[in-house]
């Protein structure tokens, strides 16, 4: 049995030293319900408890799963706050009770949850922020589709819109992100065995969200998200005390590619963008487009139209269009590549140099000199190889 305590018994066993240390946030991230996030959170909570730390459960959603409930045995569970809304009694985490109890670590399930109207904060992650500010460590759970930036992408992949979202920055500020991974096949087995939902909901789940192609796509997104989080944290830590220019050379991303395509506002640039996008898809990377504009450069009407078309194409493809003003293309590209953590640069075939420009080192060589460790690819124009097959 879980040990439940009442609000009257809420006496802090230890004071938070100084009251200024921010607690550590550890998030268990998964691709979908049922992968075992809550289970793993409870396991870690128990480990902390056995190590002698004061650990309580601020909020636990077992969803009727016996295994999960069993694992909560021995951990103190703070009572929930009951509140009435439109003649319905709703239960939420009692933020004040957590703060008053002031444990060393608190387990709080479902980070993206939206609190009932009338709660102190609209979202649970805001409660968590306050708890962290009070110096309490938090262990929490999150599904990847709740991340704001991924919500639309996942909706397109799965056809199902998730309403409860959290800003990506919350996950970005987490001290640890642990991916709870499970193959789609194993998750479906768990679902069919009734380990995730009660039997009456299994068929509906299998026909909607829990389709194997959905789960495979979500798994990929979750894996990539964690890889990016890890990469970003590593880059941040290595940047401390070092020059920004050394970023690309000294701290290349361990996982995940970021492509940068150099474009100019003319019709042929779209072909380069499409090729770059397909390469980004194959590599599972992000794509940036960069146009280096000469200072004071005036655009013709055609250039303006091409630029608008490029921006539209970037937006539809999910690429980011960057514009820099500089006389020196190589320097501007190197700066952007260092800033963005670029691993791959794609450029089109440049026009033949004329006059004194022939004496200059070509752009690809200059880029390779400035960006050691970054691949530079010259994209061929394959228009001459076209063939049309009647179907």
């Amino acid at each position, binding site marked *: 049995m879980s040990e439940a305590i009442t609000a009257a018994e809420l006496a802090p066993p230890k004071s938070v030293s100084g009251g200024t240390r921010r607690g550590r946030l550890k998030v268990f991230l998964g691709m979908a319900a049922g992968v075992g996030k809550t289970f793993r959170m409870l396991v870690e909570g128990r480990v902390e408890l056995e190590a002698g730390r004061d650990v309580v459960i601020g909020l636990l959603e077992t969803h009727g799963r016996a295994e999960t409930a069993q694992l909560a045995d021995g951990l103190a569970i703070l009572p929930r706050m009951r509140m009435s809304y439109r003649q319905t009694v709703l239960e939420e985490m009692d933020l004040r009770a957590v703060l008053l109890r002031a444990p060393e670590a608190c387990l709080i399930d479902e980070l993206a949850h939206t609190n009932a109207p009338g709660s102190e904060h609209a979202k649970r992650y805001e409660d968590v922020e306050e708890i962290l500010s009070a110096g309490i460590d938090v262990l929490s759970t999150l599904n990847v589709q709740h991340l704001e930036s991924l919500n*639309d992408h996942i*909706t397109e992949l799965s056809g199902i819109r998730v309403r409860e979202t959290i800003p990506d920055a919350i996950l970005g500020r987490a001290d640890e992100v642990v991916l709870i991974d499970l193959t789609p096949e194993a998750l479906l087995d768990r679902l069919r065995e009734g380990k995730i939902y009660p039997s009456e909901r299994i068929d509906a789940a299998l026909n909607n969200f829990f389709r194997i192609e959905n789960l495979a796509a979500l798994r990929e997104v979750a894996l990539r998200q964690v890889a990016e989080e890890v990469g970003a944290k590593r880059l941040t830590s290595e940047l401390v005390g070092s020059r920004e220019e050394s970023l690309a050379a000294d701290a290349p991303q361990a996982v995940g590619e970021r492509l940068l395509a150099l474009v100019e506002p003319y019709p042929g640039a779209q072909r380069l963008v499409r090729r770059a996008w397909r390469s980004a898809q194959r590599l599972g990377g992000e794509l940036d487009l960069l146009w280096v504009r000469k200072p004071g450069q005036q655009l013709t009407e055609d250039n303006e139209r091409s630029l608008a078309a490029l921006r539209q194409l970037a*937006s539809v493809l999910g690429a980011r269009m960057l514009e820099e003003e500089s006389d020196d293309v190589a320097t501007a590209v190197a700066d952007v590549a260092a800033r963005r953590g670029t691993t791959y640069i794609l450029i089109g075939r440049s026009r033949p140099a004329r006059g004194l420009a022939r004496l200059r080192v070509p752009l690809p060589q200059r880029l390779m000199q400035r960006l050691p460790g970054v691949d530079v690819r010259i994209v061929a124009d*394959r228009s001459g190889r076209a063939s049309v097959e*009647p179907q």
Partner: protein
Amino acid sequence: MTVLAIVIVAAGILLGIAGGYWLPPNGRLPRRERPRPVRRILLPFTGQAISRRSFEAAVRLAKAENATVMPAFLATVPMNLPLQTPLPVQCARGMPVLEAIEQRLISQGVSVDSRVGRGRTARDALRKLLEQEHFDRIIVSADEDQHSGLGYEDLRWLLERVPAEILILRTAPQDTRQISSDAVGGHL
């Protein structure tokens, strides 16, 4: 005599430098610029292929009128998503077709400038494109499969509302020739 030789050599060097500066690397004088295209032909599509007949009509007209063909992929955004949502799944289908059309147009010597339209429906995407830019002609096919993604109501809307010449091509039932992503030269 020596001075004259030096002058001749110097003049030769200067001439060489000037020639090197003005001549393109292949040593030939640049061709005269072609007259700038003045007409713009829109060729919209949404599916995974475009009717070969529409394409050929666009090529013929472009060559006759020295026009730019503007193939436009029309992507549709579901109502429950913001209009600015990236659409990678649709793009995975549409971009190879756009590439195939562009490659084919270029190989036939036709000027090309692609577009991507995005709207709630194909008509909405087309409307937005037409609001942003002027097109002299629009070529759509009225075949049963509706490769352009435009239904008969949309064609009527085009005829009634759009201030451009509209060319609607009815494909013969047996004419199933298309240009699809299979036509992309090399890998995309």
